[in-house]
C-alpha cells in the first residue's frame, strides 16, 4: 500500500530561522529518532512552534539543513501534525477522517472501516455524523488526532494541543497521545505545562530565545536542570 520509506530519523544540522531582522531559531542541531516521547518546552516565544513547523516541513530554514530519513524533500509521508488550534473541514467528523485517509493514499474501499476504527480510538464514534465545526474544543482536538493518526505516521508532531482545553479534555488528549506512543509512534510535542511534561515525557528539549539550551531525560531535567535558564524556568521565574 505504501512505499517502505521512512521519515525517521529527522536530522537538523545548524538550523536557523530568521524573520526579517529577528532570529527565531539560532543554529539548532537535533536528531529525532524512534523512542519515548520528546517534549519541547520553553517560555512563549522561545521558538517551539517554529521548530515543530520546521520538523514538519511547513517552513524552510534560512540556514542549516534538515533531512527526513536521509531525504531532504520536505513532502510529509509518514509524519503528521496536530496544531494548537486545528482547522476542521466544513464536513462531518467522519468525513474529516475519511478526507485524511484519502490524502494518505488509503484505497477508497478501506476508508469507511478505517474511519470508524480511528473515531473509536479517539472516543468520537458517537459523534461521527456531527458537523466537525460544531464539536467542542476538546472534541475537535481529538478529531485532529484521529486525522493525524489516519496518516499512519511514524512521527507525530503536536503543538501545545491541550493549551486551550479543560482538565478532562486534556486528559483525553494525553491518553490518546500515550497510546499512540505505546503503539510505536514517535511523539514530539510542545508544551509549557510542567505537569504534562512529568506525565508524558521520555526526554525533554528545552528552548530559550531560539536556542537549544538543554536536552535530557525527563526525570533528570525536572530534578536537576543543568542550565541557569532551565533552572529559572522550572522555578517559575519569568524567562525571557
Amino acid at each position, binding site marked *: 500500500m505504501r512505499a517502505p520509506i521512512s521519515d525517521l530519523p529527522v536530522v537538523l544540522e545548524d538550523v536557523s530561522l530568521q524573520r526579517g531582522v529577528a532570529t527565531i531559531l539560532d543554529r539548532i542541531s537535533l536528531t529525532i529518532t524512534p523512542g519515548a516521547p520528546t517534549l519541547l518546552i520553553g517560555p512563549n516565544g522561545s521558538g517551539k512552534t517554529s521548530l515543530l513547523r520546521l520538523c514538519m516541513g511547513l517552513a524552510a530554514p534560512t540556514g542549516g539543513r534538515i533531512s527526513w530519513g536521509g531525504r531532504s524533500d520536505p513532502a*510529509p509521508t509518514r509524519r503528521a501534525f496536530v*496544531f494548537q488550534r486545528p*482547522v476542521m*473541514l*466544513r464536513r462531518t467528523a467522519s468525513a474529516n477522517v475519511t*478526507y485524511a485517509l484519502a490524502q494518505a493514499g488509503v484505497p477508497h474501499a478501506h476508508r469507511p472501516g478505517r474511519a470508524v476504527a480511528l473515531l473509536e480510538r479517539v472516543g468520537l464514534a458517537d459523534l461521527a455524523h456531527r*458537523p*466537525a*465545526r460544531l464539536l467542542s474544543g476538546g472534541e475537535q482536538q481529538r478529531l485532529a488526532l484521529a486525522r493525524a493518526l489516519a496518516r499512519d505516521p511514524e512521527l507525530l508532531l503536536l503543538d501545545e494541543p491541550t493549551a486551550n482545553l479543560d482538565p478532562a479534555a486534556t486528559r483525553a488528549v494525553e491518553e490518546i497521545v500515550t497510546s499512540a506512543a505505546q503503539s510505536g509512534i514517535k511523539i514530539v510535542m510542545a508544551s509549557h505545562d510542567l505537569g504534562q511534561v512529568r506525565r508524558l515525557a521520555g526526554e525533554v528539549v528545552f528552548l530559550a530565545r531560539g536556542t537549544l539550551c538543554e536536552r535530557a531525560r525527563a526525570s533528570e531535567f525536572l530534578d536537576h536542570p543543568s542550565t541557569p535558564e532551565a533552572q529559572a524556568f522550572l522555578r517559575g521565574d519569568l524567562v525571557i
Partner: protein
Amino acid sequence: MPDHLSALQLILSGDPALLAIVRLSLGVSLAAVALASAIGMPFGALLALTHFRGRAVLVVLLNAMMGLPPVVVGLALYLLLSRAGPLGELGILFTPAAMVIAQTVLIVPIIAALTRQTVEDLWVEYRDELRAMNVGAVGRMTTLLWDARFSLLTALLAGFGRAAAEVGAVMIVGGNIDGFTRTMTTTVALETSKGNLPLAMGLGAILIVIVLAINAAAWGTRVWSQRVTG
C-alpha cells in the same frame, strides 16, 4: 397577447405567451449561470492559489470586468457572430444560444472574481492543515471549492441577478424576436416604448418576484448550512 388586460389579470390568467417569455428568460439566465460557474469557479480558485508575475494585474482586471457594460458585450458578440464575422459560420446570431453566450461572458468575471476572493480567504485558514496532510494542487482547489460551497452560492446569485436583469446584451444578440428570443427584460423595454404599460408592469413584477424568491432560497440555504456545518 391581448393588450387590454391589466398586469394582474395577465399574471393570474397564466397567459401562454407570457409564460413562454418567462420560461425563455429563466432558461437562458440559468444556462448562463451554469456555464459561467463551470468556467469561473475553477478559474477563480486557480487564480487564488497560484502566484506568478502579473497576477495582481489579472486580479484587478477581473474585478474591473465585473462591471462590463452589457451593450458592449452584446456588440462585440454581434460582430463575432454576424454572417461576416469570424464565428458567422455557426449561424447562431438571433438565437437563444447567442443569448446564453452573451450572458455567460457578462457573468464569468463576477463568478470568477467572487470565487477568487472566497477561496483565497479560506486558503489562509486551511493552508497549514492541508499542507500537513500533503494535499496536492488539484486537491487543494477541489477541497476549498467544496468547503466554500455555501459562500459560493452568493457568487452564483450575483451572477444570476446580473444575467436575469440585463437587457442590452440579449437585445443585441437575440434580436428580441417575438416567440423566439423575447425575454422579460426585452419585452418590458419594447412594451414600455409602445405604451403597453400593463404588460410591462406585469413582467416587471414577475421578474422582481423571481429574483426575490431565488435570493430568499439562497438565504435560507445559508442559514441552514451554518446550522449544520458550523
